[in-house]
């Protein structure tokens, strides 16, 4: 199977993910700056971004390393931040799971919040999309998210204080996540899941090593699914009544 079998879908993926360039550029440059400030050299900064490609986990690891936390605590806390990607990985199976092992290995390496969220929304909106097109679309998303990620981490490390702190570049991170989930709030189960997610994130914020995130995400998934099951039962009952 070719990497980009469907050129049109590839370009569409690039287009649909392009708004995130605005986020990825300052975010990765910020990581480069903060990491250099923490005493890492340029090779270390770029290697970390290329090996891990997960901004939130990299920031977590970096700040714990700076605090001198034990290595296993650093690893546990930052891997807990990334556990969400197991859920992304599962959610992608029905759409691109049929790809060859080599392609799946590559698609796993570049699986990030943006590529997951944007591509799954497109797949769900277009159930008739053939798998080749879905895979090409996925790589289109990756191209505009991951390439700037590498390049701007390097530039951030090289240029130092390229983005002034007065512009609050830290705020680009929550804004990015909001931009990813706000358009998903299209049905009652989605709204309930998001509400449970927020409430549980507050309730479990005291759990050590970011485990609150995992607990909140699992509870919210169950809540969304339960509301959907309830809606289906209600629709089935209504259909039965009108039948009688």
């Amino acid at each position, binding site marked *: 199977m070719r990497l980009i079998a469907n050129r049109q879908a590839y370009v569409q993926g690039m287009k649909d993910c392009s*708004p*995130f360039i*605005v*986020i990825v550029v300052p975010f990765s440059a910020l990581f480069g700056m903060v990491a250099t400030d923490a005493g890492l050299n340029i090779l270390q900064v770029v290697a970390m971004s290329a*090996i*891990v*490609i997960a901004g939130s*986990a990299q920031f977590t*690891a970096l700040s714990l*390393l*700076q605090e001198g936390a034990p290595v296993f605590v*650093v690893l546990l806390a930052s*891997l807990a931040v990334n*556990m969400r990607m197991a*859920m*992304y*990985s*599962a959610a*992608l*199976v029905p759409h691109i799971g*049929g790809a060859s*092992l080599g392609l*799946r*290995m590559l698609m*796993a390496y570049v699986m990030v*919040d943006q590529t*997951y*969220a944007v591509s799954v929304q497109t797949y*769900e909106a277009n159930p008739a999309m053939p798998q080749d097109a879905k895979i090409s679309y996925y790589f289109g998303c990756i191209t505009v998210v991951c390439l700037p990620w590498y390049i701007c981490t390097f530039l951030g490390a090289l240029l130092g204080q390229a983005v002034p702190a007065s512009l*609050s570049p*830290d*705020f*680009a991170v929550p*804004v*990015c*996540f*909001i*931009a*990813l989930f*706000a358009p*998903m*709030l299209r049905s009652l*189960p*989605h709204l309930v*899941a*998001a509400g*449970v*997610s927020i409430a549980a*994130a*507050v309730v479990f914020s005291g759990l050590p090593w970011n485990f609150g*995130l995992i607990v*909140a*995400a*699992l509870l*919210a*998934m169950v809540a*969304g*699914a339960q509301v*959907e*099951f309830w809606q289906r039962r209600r629709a089935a009952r209504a259909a039965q009544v009108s039948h009688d």
Partner: protein
Amino acid sequence: MIDNGTFWLVTLVLGIGTYLIRFSFLGLLGGRQLPDWLLTHLRYVGVAVLPAMVTPMILWPAAHGGAFDPLRMLAAMAALAAGWRLGVMWAIFIGMGSLWALQWLVGFA
């Protein structure tokens, strides 16, 4: 100062661990058909994970010393409304733009 050996150990183990997490289901399940109850849960992964990631960043922003910042809260609400009604691009521009506008206004007061 972060010790060189510690840095590489953390980076490599974190990289391998993260890769295995990403590969997990997609790699091992491949094209297998998943049961309906599981698919129903997976539909809510995005709205289950992302709000829980955002919430502490808005309530206790590190750049604000971990203290609540009403400006960041307002800008986050604006981004949410814009993303919901208008789409991704607007969420980003209105989110960042409203924070800068609010900070600028407060700077005057």
